[in-house]
C-alpha cells in the first residue's frame, strides 16, 4: 500500500517509489486573524524548557492555544558539503544530528550503495541494522525521559537517565564513540570492542515502563493530548494512530526481513499512544539486537557516477537522502528529515489544547531542530 512521505529535493517521495515534482499540497485551514484579546506568546528560541533553540509562537487568548508557528531557523547551519568526496561528506552528515547520526549516515550510504556496483556483505548490513536499532533504543528512552521530566516524576526520571547513560556507555564501548561518529565509512565499519552485552536493559526498562503506565496522574497528562490522525504522518506518530507505516518493512535495502520482530502500533493517536509505541519498540529493538553477531568487517565497493535515494526508519520516522555523485564527489544532496514532517504534525495537533499540554506533546514527537535547520551548499 503506497503512502506519501514527503518532499525530497526535487522529488516527491512515496513508500515504494518517487516522482519528480512537488508533492500534492494539503491546504491548511487558515485560522482567522487575531480576534479580540488574542496575542502571540513567544516561547524560545532560548528557554529553559526547550532542549534546542527553536522559536515557537503560540497564538492564544489566554491558556487556550489557537495556533502554533514553529520557527526552526534560529540555529540554521550551512553545511559545506558540495564537491567534497564521499568520505569527507560522511564527516558532515554525521554531525547534522548527533541523536540520529547512525540513521542519517546509513541512509546516505544506502543512497551511495544504490549507485555502486558490488553487493554489500550481509554482515555489514547487519551491523548497520545494529547501529540503527541501538540508536532507536537510546532515543526512545530519551523521549520517555523527557515526558517523565515534564510531569515532574522524579524517581522514574532518574531511573531512565541511569538507563540512558548505561546504553550510551555500551554504544561507546562497542563502537568507540557514543554517537557513532567515525564508525561508518565507505569501506568499513569500525568496531572497538565486540564483546558488549545488552541483556539486562530489557528487564530494567520493563519495570520502569510498567510502573509509569500504571500511574493515573501521569497518564492523564498524556491521554487526549495532541491527537492527530493523518495519513501523511510518519514514524511513531503514525503508528500510534494505527497506521502500519514503517520503513523497515517497506524498504528492501536493509535485511530486516531476516529478523524476527514486529511493528508496534496503537490506536489512540495521542501522546499516550506515542509513548506506548516507543516503549514497545524498545523491546522489539532489543530482540533484533540479540540476533546479531558483531564482528568488524571491511568490504570493497566501487562507487559510480549517478544518483540514488536511500531511506531508513530513524527513531522518529522516515529519513531519506538523495545523492548525486560525479567523479567520486558529491555534487547534489537533499535531505528529507523526519522532524520536518513531525513539526507540521505537531503544529496541527497542538490546536485546541491548553498551555500545560504543550511540553508533553512537543516531547512526544521526538523533534530535533538540528536536522531541520540545515542547508547544503
Amino acid at each position, binding site marked *: 500500500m503506497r503512502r506519501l512521505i514527503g518532499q525530497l529535493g526535487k522529488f516527491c517521495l512515496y513508500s515504494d517509489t518517487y516522482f519528480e515534482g512537488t508533492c500534492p499540497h494539503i491546504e491548511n485551514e487558515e485560522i482567522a486573524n487575531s480576534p*479580540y484579546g488574542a*496575542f502571540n506568546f513567544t516561547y524560545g528560541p532560548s528557554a529553559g524548557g526547550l532542549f534546542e533553540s527553536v522559536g515557537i509562537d503560540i497564538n*492564544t487568548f489566554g491558556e487556550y492555544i489557537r495556533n502554533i508557528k514553529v520557527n526552526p531557523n534560529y540555529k540554521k547551519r550551512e553545511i559545506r558539503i558540495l564537491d567534497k568526496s564521499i568520505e569527507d561528506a560522511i564527516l558532515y552528515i554525521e554531525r547534522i544530528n548527533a541523536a540520529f547520526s547512525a540513521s542519517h549516515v546509513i541512509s546516505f550510504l544506502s543512497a551511495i550503495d544504490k549507485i555502486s556496483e558490488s553487493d554489500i556483505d550481509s554482515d555489514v548490513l547487519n551491523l548497520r541494522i545494529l547501529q540503527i536499532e541501538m540508536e532507536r533504543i537510546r532515543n526512545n528512552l530519551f523521549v520517555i525521559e523527557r515526558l517523565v521530566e515534564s510531569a515532574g516524576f522524579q524517581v522514574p526520571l532518574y531511573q531512565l537517565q541511569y538507563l540512558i547513560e548505561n546504553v550510551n556507555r555500551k554504544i561507546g564501548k562497542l563502537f568507540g564513540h557514543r554517537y557513532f561518529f567515525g564508525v561508518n565509512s565507505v569501506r568499513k565499519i569500525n568496531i572497538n570492542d565486540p564483546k558488549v552485552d545488552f541483556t539486562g536493559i530489557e528487564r530494567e526498562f520493563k519495570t520502569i515502563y510498567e510502573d509509569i503506565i500504571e500511574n493515573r496522574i501521569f497518564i492523564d497528562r498524556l491521554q487526549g493530548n495532541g491527537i492527530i490522525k493523518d495519513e501523511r504522518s510518519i514514524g511513531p506518530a503514525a503508528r500510534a494512530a494505527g497506521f502500519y507505516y514503517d520503513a523497515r518493512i517497506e524498504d528492501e535495502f536493509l535485511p530486516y526481513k531476516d529478523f524476527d520482530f514486529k511493528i508496534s502500533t496503537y490506536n489512540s493517536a495521542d501522546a499516550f499512544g506515542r509513548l506506548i509505541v516507543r516503549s514497545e519498540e524498545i523491546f522489539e529493538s532489543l530482540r533484533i539486537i540479540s540476533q546479531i553477531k558483531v564482528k568488524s568487517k571491511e568490504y570493497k565497493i566501487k562507487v559510480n557516477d549517478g544518483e540514488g535515494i536511500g531511506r531508513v526508519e530513524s527513531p522518529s520516522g522516515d529519513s531519506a537522502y538523495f545523492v548525486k555523485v560525479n567523479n567520486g564527489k558529491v555534487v547534489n544532496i537533499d535531505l528529507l528529515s523526519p522532524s520536518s514532517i513531525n513539526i507540521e504534525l505537531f503544529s496541527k495537533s497542538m490546536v485546541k489544547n491548553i498551555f500545560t499540554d504543550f511540553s508533553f506533546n512537543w516531547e512526544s514527537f521526538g523533534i530535533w531542530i538540528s536536522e531541520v535547520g540545515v542547508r547544503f551548499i
Partner: protein
Amino acid sequence: MSIFLSIFKKKIGYALSAITSIIFVYYGITIGNIYGYFFIISGLVWLFSSIFSIFYDTYGKWLSPLFITSILGMAIALTARTYIEFLAGWEIMTIPAYAIIGLNRKLDSPAFIFMGFGELSTILIFAGFIYAYTTSNSFYFTALDTYIPLIVITFGFMIKMGIFPFLVTEWLPIAHGNSPANASAILSATMTLVAAYGIVKMMLLSPDIPILGYILMGIGGFSIFFGALYAYISEHVKGLLAFSTIENNGAILSAIGVYMTYPTKTIAEFALDVIVTFAFAHSIAKTGLFMISGTVEGEALSKLKIIRNKLGEIGGILLASSMSGLLPNIGGVATWSLLESLFMEAYILHSTLSSISIITGSVIAMGEGFASAAMIKFISYTQVFKGITGKSAKITIFSIIGFVILILGSLSYLLFRNFIYGVPSLGIPNGFIIISEYSSGKIFGDISPFYVLILIVVFSLLTLGIFGKPKVRKTNTWNNGIKPREEYTAFAFANNIRLMLSKLLRTEIKGDSLETSTDIFWKVMYYIAKKYVSFSRRLARSYMNSSISWYIIYMILAFILITILVVIL
C-alpha cells in the same frame, strides 16, 4: 437653581452642585442619627463627581442639567418624610438617568431596560407604601406593625440594586456601562445607596421578621459571588465596575439580612454599623473608580488609550485595594466586619440555621477572591502598567479620593461607636481597636486599621533608614533571547476562569472568538418573558377580538362593576 444655570453654563452648574453637596454633608453630620451617614456619603459622592464633571464633561448640553436633576431627586428621596415625597424623589432621580443613558448612545435598549426595571421597582415600592398607608393611616414614615410592606418594598429596592434573584444581573451593567463616567458614578454609588437607605428605613420601622433576614443573607451572598465572578471576566471598563456594584450591594444586603435575623442586640447593632461602613467604602471608592474609567479613552480593557502618572497610580491602587477588601483602607474594615457578623451569628445560634450564615460567609469569601482579582485586572490595565505619562486634573481628583479612602479607614472607628477598645499594654490606647462582640463583654475578634497604617509607614521608613535608597539598575527585558513583542491582554488575564468554569459561564470557543454568556439566568428570564408575551398576546386576541358585541358586553360589565364599588364604599 443650579439646574437652570447649568443649562447655560455647564461648569458653573457643576460648581454650584458641588457647593450644595458640601452643605448636604454638613447637614448629615449634624443630624445625628443613622440616616445622617447616608447623607454624608451621598454628599461626598456628589461633591467629588461634580468637581470631576467640571473637567470631564465634553458631551452635549444635555448632560449637566440631567446630572444635577438626578442628584436633586436623590436628595429629595433621602430627606423625604412622607411616602409621597420619597416616590417623587425616586422618580425625579430615575427619569433623568434614563435620559442620560438613552442620549449617550442613541441606543434605545439600555435605556429601555433601565426604565423597565426602574418602573417595576417603583411599582413594588408604591404597592408597599400603599399597604403601609392603609395600616398606619398616615403618609409619614412611622413605625408599622406589619412586615408586609417591608417585604414588598425590599424586593422593589432589590431590583434597583441589581440583585440576583430577579435573574437580572445583566440590566445594571448594561445601564451603568452605557452612560458617561460621571453619571455612572452617581448611578452606581448613590442610586443604589438610596435603595439601601430605603430598605434600612423601612426595616427600622417594621417589626422583626427573621425569615426574611435569612433569605436576604443568602441572596446577598450569592450576588457577591456572581457579581465578583462576572466582574472578573468582564472586558468592558465600566461593565466591570457595574458588576462590582452588584457585588457590593449584595454585601450590604447580607448585612441587612444579619440585622433582620436579630440574633442578639449586640450583633444587630454591629450589623447596622457594617451596613454604614460598607456603604461608605463602596460608594466613595466606586466613584473614584468610575472616574478612572472616565480618564481613559475607549471601553474595551484590552485596547485603551491611557494617560497616567505616579499620583494616579497611587490613588488607583488605594481605591482598588479598598474595593478588594484590604486594610488599612475602609474597604478592609467593611469586609472584615461583614464576615465577623456572619460568623458571630453562626457561633451564637448553634442550630441548623447557622449553616446558612456559614455558607453565606464562605461564598462571600470566595467572591472576595474574585473581586480582588477583578480589581487587580482593572487597575493594571488602566493605571499601573500601561499608557503614556502625563498630567491631568481628572487624575488628581480620583487620587484625592484614593487618599480619602485611606483616611476613612483610619476614621472608621467613628462608625463603630460602641465597639471600640484598646490594649494599652501593647501600646494601643483605648479607641483604636474595633472589636466584634456578640453579647456585651464577649469579644469575638478585632482589628485596628489605624495601627496597620502606622506600622506600614514605620516599617517602610525603618527599612529605608537601615538599608538606604534601593540601588536600581535598568536593564533590558529577557524574553527568550529576542525583543519583547507581545503584550498580555486583559482578556487573557481572566481567560483561565472562563475555561475552568466553562459550564457555569457557558463558554463557547468559536473559530475566531471565545464567548461567554454572562448570564445563564437571563436566558431563563428571557424565556419566561417570551412565554408571557405570547400568552398575553393570545389572551388579548381572545377577548379583544374586534367584535362589537363583545365590546358592548365589556362596557356593560365595567358599568356594573363601578356601580357596585360606589355603593359599597
